């Protein structure tokens, strides 16, 4: 029955040759498990589209109803927790998978001739996905959504020249509110998906048109004596033909892609079913005890704001963002050496490692920072020394860590009693130091208690 249906269609459209060409074309040897991340990205994007479209059936993009509608999806709609959970968790996993996909492409030097355009469309796709993430998590309109958007749009607003303009375009007005939510919804549901579809199509067209890059070889293939002096394109074509000759049909690789997609699907489903979509309290623009914190994939950037200070900060942020965009986008143009093997590209590989360590380090610091305005400690029992209480109430813990608890902006004070004398401590507290405000208003009793406590830390 199925065969007859296919034959009926094919008699009219003659598409089977295309299908066979797609499946049976040879791909170079060594296309294996490292290559599943591209198709995994596509798979997760499809999951996003599928679940996202259905979420709009219940979701209401207004400040009055957004939060309750998400709550309704989570609690009342059959499979609501599952559908919303898949949307949320596959987005997080998508960011990781894209990162690995880019690293694989980078390590294999696959962005080099003739695949520069594939890399560029890929970088555009990365930023589109980040834009999806940023616009998407305002939509539940909970505390995290609201405050992360306040901070996120303010970062854009800090940019030189176009900052104010960008801020208002993003917010749809001056404040984050109904207009912002409406606008982010439009971006998230219409504009970004349209752009994404276009770039995914272009990216895939390039991948299929050019074939998958062969894994790099330490020793180049022997192209024959007459290869010297041939134009670059002909050398490449001869090389790639040899790689394909030694390779296998594409349908062999596709099984690995399918297995990996299945694993991802199971992982996402498990996360959706167990954790669902955690909601914070509804957005409250008037909360003064809330500690704004972005989604984990923006924590690195959030943490970076600790280190840029003063009048040059806006320019610094702008240059860092512009730098990251340009470094990624223009990679194939400033790295023009034809060498593709990672072992022979020590500088490129070292740069990648530094970038990974920086991103992971900042994310880690951002994740473990408790926020710099600790709530005054609860009264505490007799066991808590008065100085420790003072350490909390004066806000010291916002920047300083003692015994693993506290902020990271200032020095760790866990052993400060062994490092500074009481007089030195007193001077620092009363007069301040670089990056630390003077606490000159402190009462003598509080100061005394604080000094006793700090001296005892050895």
């Amino acid at each position, binding site marked *: 029955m199925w065969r007859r249906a296919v034959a009926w269609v094919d008699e009219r459209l003659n598409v089977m040759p295309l299908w066979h060409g797609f499946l049976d074309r040879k791909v170079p040897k060594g296309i294996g498990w490292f290559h599943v991340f591209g198709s995994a990205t596509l798979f997760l994007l499809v999951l996003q589209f599928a679940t996202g479209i259905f979420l709009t059936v219940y979701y209401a993009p207004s400040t009055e109803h957004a939060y309750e509608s998400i709550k309704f999806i989570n609690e009342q709609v059959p499979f609501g927790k599952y559908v919303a959970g898949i949307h949320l968790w596959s987005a997080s996993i998508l960011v990781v998978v894209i990162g690995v996909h880019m690293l694989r492409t980078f390590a294999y030097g696959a962005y080099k001739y003739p695949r520069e355009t594939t890399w560029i469309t890929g970088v555009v796709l990365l930023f589109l996905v980040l834009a999806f993430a940023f616009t998407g998590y305002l939509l539940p309109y909970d505390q995290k959504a609201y405050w992360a958007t306040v901070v996120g749009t303010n970062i854009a607003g800090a940019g030189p020249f176009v900052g104010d303009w960008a801020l208002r375009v993003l917010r749809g007005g001056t404040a984050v509110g*109904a207009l912002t939510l409406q606008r982010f919804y439009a971006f998230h549901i219409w504009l970004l998906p349209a752009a994404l579809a276009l770039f995914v199509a272009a990216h895939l067209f390039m991948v299929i048109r050019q074939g998958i890059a062969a894994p790099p070889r330490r020793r180049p293939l022997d192209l024959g004596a007459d290869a010297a002096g041939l134009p670059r394109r002909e050398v490449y074509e001869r090389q790639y033909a040899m790689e394909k000759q030694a390779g296998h049909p594409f349908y062999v690789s596709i099984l690995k892609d399918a297995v990996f997609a299945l694993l991802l699907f199971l992982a996402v489903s498990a996360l959706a079913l167990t954790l669902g979509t955690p909601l914070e309290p509804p957005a409250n623009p008037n909360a003064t005890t809330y500690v704004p914190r972005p989604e984990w994939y923006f924590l690195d950037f959030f943490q970076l704001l600790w280190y840029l200070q003063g009048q040059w900060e806006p320019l610094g942020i702008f240059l860092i963002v512009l730098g990251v965009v340009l470094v990624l986008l223009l990679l194939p143009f400033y790295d023009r050496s034809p060498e593709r093997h990672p072992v022979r590209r020590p500088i490129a590989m070292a740069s990648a490692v530094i970038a990974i360590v920086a991103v992971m380090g900042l994310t880690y610091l951002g994740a473990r920072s408790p926020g710099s305005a600790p709530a005054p400690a609860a009264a505490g029992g007799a066991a808590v020394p008065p100085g420790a209480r003072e350490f909390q109430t004066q806000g010291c813990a916002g920047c300083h860590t003692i015994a693993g608890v506290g902020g990271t902006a200032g020095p760790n004070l866990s052993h400060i009693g062994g490092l500074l004398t009481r007089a030195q401590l007193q001077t620092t507290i009363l007069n301040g130091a670089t990056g630390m405000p003077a606490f000159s208003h402190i009462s003598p009793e509080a100061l005394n208690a604080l000094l006793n406590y700090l001296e005892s830390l050895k």
Partner: protein
Amino acid sequence: MAQDEPQEGRSTRRQAVMTALGAIVGFISAALVVPLVVFLFGPAVRGKSSWGLLGRSIPPTPRSREPWVRVGDLGPMPQGDAVLTTVRLPVQEGWIQSDMPVTVYVRRSGPDSATIYDIHCTHMGCPVRWNQAAGRFLCPCHGGVFDGDGHVLSGPPPRPLDRYAVKVDAGVLYMGALELPGT
């Protein structure tokens, strides 16, 4: 018949068609894209209204021309402490008019004087917390610290806490527009 044309004739004819096609597509695109982009960027383009007034701050645009909103009697307020107070501000957000609750810090500085601070850190807009024991506003995000008068003591904030205009009339405190740097 086209295929009977000499090579040269066909290519000039084809070129002419392509040019015309390009002109038509270009015209339709421009006539569509320019209005669509301006439509999208409306909030930034409409310069005449109060859009630009609030710059990088958070509170919404007040609706009324009468700028003074009653905050409360000054009498019972303690001096020196910054008190969180919620004021209902008539605001206009696009097509929505509402009396929006806006929370501010009111700090009474004398028998008939007070300062009203916006709760948002001037760095990235996180809500600052008043710490009574230290007499400071602490930002929970990146270590910004302001003294009781809103001046920056440390951290990345580029300017003091934003203030609202205040008026005291017969012992009653009124709140006005947000005063922004340079205004």
